[in-house]
């Protein structure tokens, strides 16, 4: 490997690195504003100047490729003088409004001016003023503070794939704006707030809420979709003030979706704080004793076969396991986790997870989407596909039309006929697929929900297995589940029979008399005469139809494990407290068990967690991918039915009870609807 001398220390670096990256290898910190690891290099802030031997001028280390034998110095007075000069120019037009700026305390410019700022201004001219720009309901702008690093412009064009932000004008009149000040049409738009090194782009919902040093920071996991993005939850007292992304290159890199970030104001609204009982067709405040007594009496008078339970979209693994055990006590097996009918083969773990892994997308050389819209169903996966599309010009194909995905793709058909052609090697696309080395086939819930869902899944699995696309090194079979709880609950064997819609059939036939909804708001059914107990955190669709409402803790208020769509177990940590009289789910189950005179069977959190680790299939380590196994058996695929593959649209900003309670999300939803109407 080539060598470079940094501050008289010789280090080795990889070919293709820049001087700045080499300096980082040598543990030398270089100040910067415009440079960002995940974005292209712009080299326009000039803050990263360093001294290079044989160069009369200082060089911008972010843009200079490192070369053999370079002698770089970063701690000389020459460098300091250069950086001070740059900082003076940056501050020439930057307002001195740190006390009223939301970036204060986490501002790159503030931090770096501590080391390179000059204490007096030599400028007597007025500072320039730039009008605020409208960028949508999430981004608050104060463009006078902008230092034109163009990180936001590069993010929008490169990562988000919506080239809507740009720099207009030139010289002193340069301004950053969206095209005609329209709101940014992306599910990743709010990441520009984190990227902005100054207070030009700040968070609108979080404006003037708190200072960073007042907040308690808890590292946690997002549960808005099945990706399991790593987040940091910032709380002030018990109130969740904001959610920020945490770096995890295997899942979300440095970004999170707008829904993950801004649903948090929904945690304060429409919360259930005490148990409710329906009296005279109206839910009335009650207490735990009364509500549970009524519930127990109903359970006792109901035949166990007529007791059913449904687990919602954001249930942690420990709670789900306790719920399953509780139902064993009820002698009932009518449990379901799906919100709509869709085919799942629960025989093997690979049948319901994203086997290629999110990072694997970057290695892949072909992607086929079947009835999936990753942009809405798993935003971070879409961002990763886009990254591979831009970096490796990865070809993407789709069966079914998912709409705008922020990258180009080819629709090769929209019916199950195209799938049968593909597996019978009759179409041109089959050749392409067979000649690829690491293909990825992503099957969405919309496709599995069709009558031919079984056919689609089993025949594709067989096709991939026959053509050795399922091996220890690479598994091309991927299922795109939509809810944070789905994969984990299947692992816990919540579904009693492998592929059975009996729950839905019985539910629609009105065969259940007692229905226990554990945080499920998206289950669509017509209420007959069931007695419904809803246990959830928000007064949403589930609570509306319930006879008893039991308040539980939301995802930021309890410790729990979640399994993401790759089968990766991650820990969601308690950042705040359950509000009012609400409790963690397993504690509520303990109350029920006590009422049933089964005190000895009560749950303990630690033992529940231990059991979860034992039960999860192919488990390796927490935060790690599951073990890759070979296909054990291939199921007989069912009959071919000619069907059109349509993708059920997902109401992105309104997909769960927390986001439905969020004011920010409803604003986003209205604006995105308006944009779609006017085009």
């Amino acid at each position, binding site marked *: 490997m080539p060598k470079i001398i940094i501050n008289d220390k010789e280090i080795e670096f990889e070919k293709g690195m820049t001087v700045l990256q080499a300096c980082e290898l040598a543990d030398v910190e270089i100040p910067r504003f415009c440079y960002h690891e995940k974005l292209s290099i712009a080299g326009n802030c000039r803050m990263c100047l360093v001294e290079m031997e044989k160069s009369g001028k200082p060089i911008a280390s972010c843009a200079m490729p490192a070369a053999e034998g370079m002698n770089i110095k970063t701690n000389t007075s020459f460098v300091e003088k250069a950086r001070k000069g740059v900082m003076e120019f940056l501050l020439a037009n930057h307002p001195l409004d740190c006390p009223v700026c939301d970036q204060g305390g986490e501002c790159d410019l503030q931090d770096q001016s501590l080391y390179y700022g000059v204490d007096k201004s030599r400028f007597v001219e007025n500072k320039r003023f730039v009008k605020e720009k409208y960028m949508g309901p999430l981004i608050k702008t104060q463009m006078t503070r902008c230092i034109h690093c163009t990180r936001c412009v590069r993010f929008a064009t490169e990562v988000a794939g919506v080239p809507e932000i740009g720099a207009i*004008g030139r010289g002193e009149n340069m301004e950053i704006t969206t095209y005609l000040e329209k709101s940014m049409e992306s599910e990743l738009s709010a990441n520009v707030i984190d990227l902005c090194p100054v207070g030009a782009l700040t968070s609108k919902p979080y404006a003037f809420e708190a200072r960073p040093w007042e907040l308690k920071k808890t590292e946690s996991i997002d549960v808005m979709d099945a990706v399991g993005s790593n987040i940091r939850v910032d709380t002030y007292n018990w109130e969740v003030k904001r959610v920020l992304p945490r770096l995890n290159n295997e899942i979300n890199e440095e970004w999170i979706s707008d829904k993950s970030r801004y649903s948090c104001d929904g945690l304060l609204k429409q919360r259930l704080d005490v148990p409710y009982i329906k009296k005279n067709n109206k839910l009335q405040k009650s207490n735990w004793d009364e509500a549970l007594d009524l519930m127990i009496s109903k359970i006792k008078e109901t035949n166990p076969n007529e007791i059913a339970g449904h687990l919602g979209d954001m249930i942690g693994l420990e709670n789900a396991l306790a719920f399953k055990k509780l139902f064993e006590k009820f002698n009932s097996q009518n449990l379901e986790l799906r919100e709509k009918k869709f085919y799942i083969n629960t025989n093997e773990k690979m049948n319901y997870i994203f086997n290629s892994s999110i990072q694997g997308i970057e290695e892949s050389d072909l992607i086929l989407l079947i009835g999936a819209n990753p942009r809405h169903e798993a935003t971070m996966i879409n961002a990763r596909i886009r990254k591979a599309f831009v970096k490796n010009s990865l070809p993407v194909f789709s069966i079914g039309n998912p709409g705008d995905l922020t990258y180009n793709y080819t629709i090769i058909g929209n019916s199950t006929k195209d799938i049968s052609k593909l597996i019978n090697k009759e179409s041109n696309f089959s050749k392409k697929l067979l000649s690829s080395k690491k293909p990825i086939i992503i099957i969405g819930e919309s496709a599995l929900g069709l009558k031919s869902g079984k056919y689609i899944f089993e025949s594709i699995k067989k096709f991939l297995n026959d053509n050795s696309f399922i091996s220890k090194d690479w598994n091309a079979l991927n299922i795109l589940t939509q809810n944070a709880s789905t994969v984990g609950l299947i692992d816990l064997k919540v579904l009693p029979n492998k592929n059975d819609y009996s729950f839905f059939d019985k539910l629609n036939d009105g065969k259940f008399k007692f229905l226990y909804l554990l945080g499920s708001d998206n289950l669509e059914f017509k209420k007959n005469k069931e007695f419904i107990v809803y246990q959830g955190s928000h007064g949403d669709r589930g609570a509306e139809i319930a006879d008893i409402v039991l308040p539980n803790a939301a995802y930021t208020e309890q410790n729990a494990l979640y399994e993401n769509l790759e089968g990766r177990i991650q820990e969601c940590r308690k950042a705040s407290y359950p509000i009012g009289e609400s409790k963690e789910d397993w504690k509520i189950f303990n109350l029920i068990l006590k009422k049933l005179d089964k005190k000895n069977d009560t749950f303990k959190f630690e033992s529940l967690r231990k059991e979860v680790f034992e039960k999860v299939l192919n488990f390796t380590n927490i935060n790690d991918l599951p073990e890759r196994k070979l296909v054990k058996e291939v199921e007989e695929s069912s009959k071919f039915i000619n069907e059109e593959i349509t993708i059920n649209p997902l109401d992105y900003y309104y997909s769960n009870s927390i986001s439905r309670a969020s004011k920010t999300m409803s604003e986003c939803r209205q604006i995105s609807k308006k944009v779609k109407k006017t085009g």
Partner: protein
Amino acid sequence: MSLKKVHKDQPSDFNFNKKNLEQVDIILKRYPKKNKKSAVMPLLYLAQRQNNNWIPLAAMKYIGKLLSMPYISVYEVATFYTMYNLAPVGKHFIQVCTTTPCLIRGADKLVKLCKEKISPNENELSKKGDCSWVEVECLGACVNAPMMQINDNYYEDLDEKSTIEILNSLIKDKPLKPGSYRGRKSTSPEKIKSTNGEQHA
């Protein structure tokens, strides 16, 4: 110079006419197919020529679609360069050079006269609506300073008297001839024999 702003009243539609579409084909041939965005500047100029010397938003959108590039990128280019007009200008569009050589030779007087005769501010249409003026940076005719450009023509070696005559002629919609107003032949030396022995005024 301040940031150029787009005009309030925008036409809803813009299409190149037949003649210009032929031009577009010729322009696009100059660049490799994968780099067809490179044609954005000549196409913006073409649009400005077609649309009475200014570029409406509809034209930027049209060009963005034509070259399959984001609207914001076309917008960036159009706002960056000073010679693209984003708001209507007069039929007689006067550009007064005020860079150092012209200024030393009295360009400020020209500006003053424009303010009096045409409109008190830059980029403002005259009362009759057929003239407007703007201060510009060096137009490259320093030898004939002070000078101004009216539409495509250079009016050079100006003084107050000649400027008043020119501006009056524009207001009457009967523009005078372009060229030197001290009778010079292009940029030849004044009152000194030229190399071929001819005597100039």
